[in-house]
Structures are given as C-alpha cells and as structure tokens.
C-alpha cells in the first residue's frame, strides 16, 4: 500500500482562506450567512472558515452564524451499514428563513452524505439557498450533487482512499491518498 500527501498543513490553511473569501463574494457580504459543518471534520472546517471570515469582516459574528448538522439519522444506508454514533446538532438560529446555508464537509465522494444533510436541513425549515463547501472533491458521484466551493479537485480511482487529518482531531494536518 502506498500513500502520497496531496495537501500539506499550509495548503489546507490557504484553501480555507480562499473558500471563506469565495463564500463572502458569492453572498455579496456576510449578511444572512449560516455555516453548518457536517461531523466530524466538517465541523472543524466550518469553524475555521467562520474564523477566517470574522478576521476579515468584523461584522460577522461566528457565535450566531456557525453550527453543526448531524446527518446520521437521515442516511439512506442505515439498514445495510452499521452506522456511526449520533452527535449533537446545533443550529444557532430559530428560523432558516432568508438565510443562505453553507454546508461544509471534508470529502465529497458519492454525494449521499450531502443528500442526507439536505433532508436534515429541510426538517428545520426552508433556507433561501443552500451551498456546499468541501476541502476535497474526489469524484465518483452517485447523485446529481456538486460542490460550490472546493479546496482541491482530486481525481481518484474508486479503490483509492482519502484521509483528511486536521489538528482539532488528529495529530497532524494533511490530506493523504492511499492506494
């Protein structure tokens, strides 16, 4: 088994800063933005994107604009795969009306997690728009879903595995591809 580092710690930092700028640019400012991370590493990325936005736009208040959305209970493969433990969902707003929600995850693969996230979101209300930000897009979609903000497009073969490591949950920070 061989492994190759495709993004190092610096690359990840730069990708996060770029994505945070792209989000504000597309939203024409920071008003009515809600950034929701998908556990586990999507939450860390969402927090970092929010911190990066707050650094450049002081009017952006992370405590009311960042949350986490657990999608385990909305997955379509519950019956066939042992599922992960459910982690808390926290959405720091009463209503999603008029908000642009940016979903954040580490790797975009089949698209099924994002589909589950869209279902989970609908049970909270009707946002004005939903966008998707991912650190790595590795292809092999099984559903008509695409990301709006991508850290790195990484063409892979189906059998390869991608490991995202972030300082919040791992002992180093990198994106590694293993074949």
């Amino acid at each position: 088994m061989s492994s190759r580092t495709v993004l190092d710690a610096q690359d990840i930092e730069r990708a996060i800063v770029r994505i945070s700028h792209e989000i504000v640019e597309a939203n024409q400012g920071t008003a009515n933005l809600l950034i929701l991370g998908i556990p586990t590493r999507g939450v860390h990325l969402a927090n970092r994107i929010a911190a990066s936005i707050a650094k450049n736009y002081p009017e952006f208040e992370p405590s009311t604009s960042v949350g986490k959305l657990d999608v385990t209970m909305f997955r379509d493969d519950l019956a066939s795969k042992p599922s992960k433990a459910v982690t808390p969902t926290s959405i720091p707003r009463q209503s999603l009306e008029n908000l642009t929600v940016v979903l954040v995850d580490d790797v975009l693969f089949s698209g099924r997690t994002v589909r589950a996230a869209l279902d989970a979101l609908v049970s909270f209300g009707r946002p004005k728009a939903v966008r998707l930000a991912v650190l790595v897009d590795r292809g092999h979609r099984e559903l008509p879903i695409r990301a709006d903000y991508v850290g790195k497009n990484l063409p892979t073969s189906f059998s390869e595995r991608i490991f995202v490591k972030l300082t919040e949950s791992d002992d180093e920070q990198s994106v590694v591809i293993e074949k």
Partner: protein
Amino acid sequence: MKHLLSTGDLDLANSLELLNLSVEMQGVNSRDVKKLPSLTGRTVANLFFEDSTRTRFSFEIAAKRLSADVVNFTAKGSSVSKGESLKDTVLTLEAMGIEALIVRHHHSGAANTIANSYWSNATVINAGDGTHQHPTQALTDALTIRQALKGKEDSGDLSGIKVLIVGDILHSRVARSNIDLLKTLGAYVGLAGPSTLLPSEASSLADAVYHNLDEALLDGFDVVMMLRMQMERMNSVFVPNANEYSTLWGLSSERFSNLKSSTLIMHPGPMNRGLEISSEAADSSQSAIVDQVRNGVSVRMAVLYKLLAQESSAK
C-alpha cells in the same frame, strides 16, 4: 444488542448512549418537522396483552416519528379472546414480516420467552412484563432526573444523586428496572415500603431500606419516586386498608411541605391521587410527572433507533 428486555442487561456505556441519543431525539421533537426517515420501510408491532395508555401511545408516536409502519395489537379484540396462544400470535405476526415486537404482558418473562424462542427473528422490546421489568420507563426516569438535577445538556451519569423509591416495590416492574439502571448510573438508591411489599432481597438490591417513610425523608434524598399502589393488591395479605396505607406511606401535603424545595417528585403514572400521592405534591413545581411522560417519546425513539437502525444491520 438486539433486544431490550431488562435494564439489568445495560452496562454504563449502553445506558449513557441511550440517554444521550434521547437528548438528540428531544431536539427532533422540538422541531417544526418532527420526523426522521431512519426506519422507512420497517414494520413495528405493538403487542399489548395488558392495558396501557402512555406506554402504548408513546411507542406508537416514537415509531411513527422515525417513519416506521406501526401495527397495533391489543389482546381484547384479537384472536387471543378465542384462545390463541402467545406462541401462535407471535408466529402469525412473524409470518407477516414484522421486524420489531414491542411487548407488554401480564406474565413476568413474556418478552424474554419470545426473544429466546424460534418463533420470531424480530427485535423484542419489553414494554412491561408482569412484576419483572419495564426498561423504557426506567430510561425515561433516568433522563428526567439527569435533566432536572444536572441540566438539559449534561451527558454524564447520576453519581452523587440520592433517589428514594416508595411504595409497593415487590410488585413493581418500574421499581425493579429503576433500581438496576440507577445503580448502573452510579446513583444512591433507597427503598421504603411496608415489609409485606418489599422483596426479601431488598437490602442487597439497594443502598438503604426503610420501614418508615418519615425516617427515610429525613435522609436528604434528591428525588422521591412514589409508586402506584396497585388497588388489586389492597387486601389484608399485603396492606390492611387504603386509609392505613395512605397515612403511613402516602406523600401527603404535610410530608411534602417538609421536604426541601429542591426535592424532585416523580411518579410513573397512573396516579391514585389522595392515596399514594397528594395533589399538592403531584401538581407542584417540584413535580416532574409531566416531564416523565414527555420524555417517554424521545426515549422510545432512541431505543427504536438504536435497536433497529443502528444495530440490526446484520440482517
């Protein structure tokens, strides 16, 4: 974990997982859309050989909020009244493709019998069997205690909390389930009741046993859980009469007013007001009786989710 038959089968990790999952389910139950797709296409049967209001409805609501299909079976109005046995009833439901059986039966061990038989491959959840166990009620009570005394978001055990269970311990499946689970969660458990209604092994079940309620209430319990006096047992063998029971063992308004104002009052329902509990105590701000019912739906969602969505993937 395929079945939930007794709180005695739950270790600390399993118990905390179910309680914390219940907190997530409370979140779902407070949303506009109170529905999860987790059990779509699964069929759950409520198999009730004994009357019930809150347990049956809360299981039905819980299963429906998880998108399962629910069929309700009550002994009255079924072929049981024509003499059909438990075995044939279960075989019939199995043939129809039921994946989970929620069983309430007047005989202790009924749920275990089904779970350990060849009659069915379904997941079995004990919803009360005779005088044996009622695990989802105990989980509901544990969640209610934790949230009332340690905060809504707490995710830990119940160590340091003193719980007094009062009344007919001998015949109470609620008491038996609660004792097991509270001990697993690290709580201090006291039992109080007339000696005719205490099991012979009471002193090995609990941390303290009292034969006088007023004495017990002096010991600074954080939670006082009153049990229902089962009127059918109100005869000379167990208790001389209702008046005497109420005087000696009821949470009267006078006893209630002597408790410290932080003491949590619980009752699994249905209550006999004026017998084991006074209206002053039941309706006070210290009473968690309504919360116990409210939490029942979330806890049963958590149990169904864990057993059917998370763990029965090895089909």
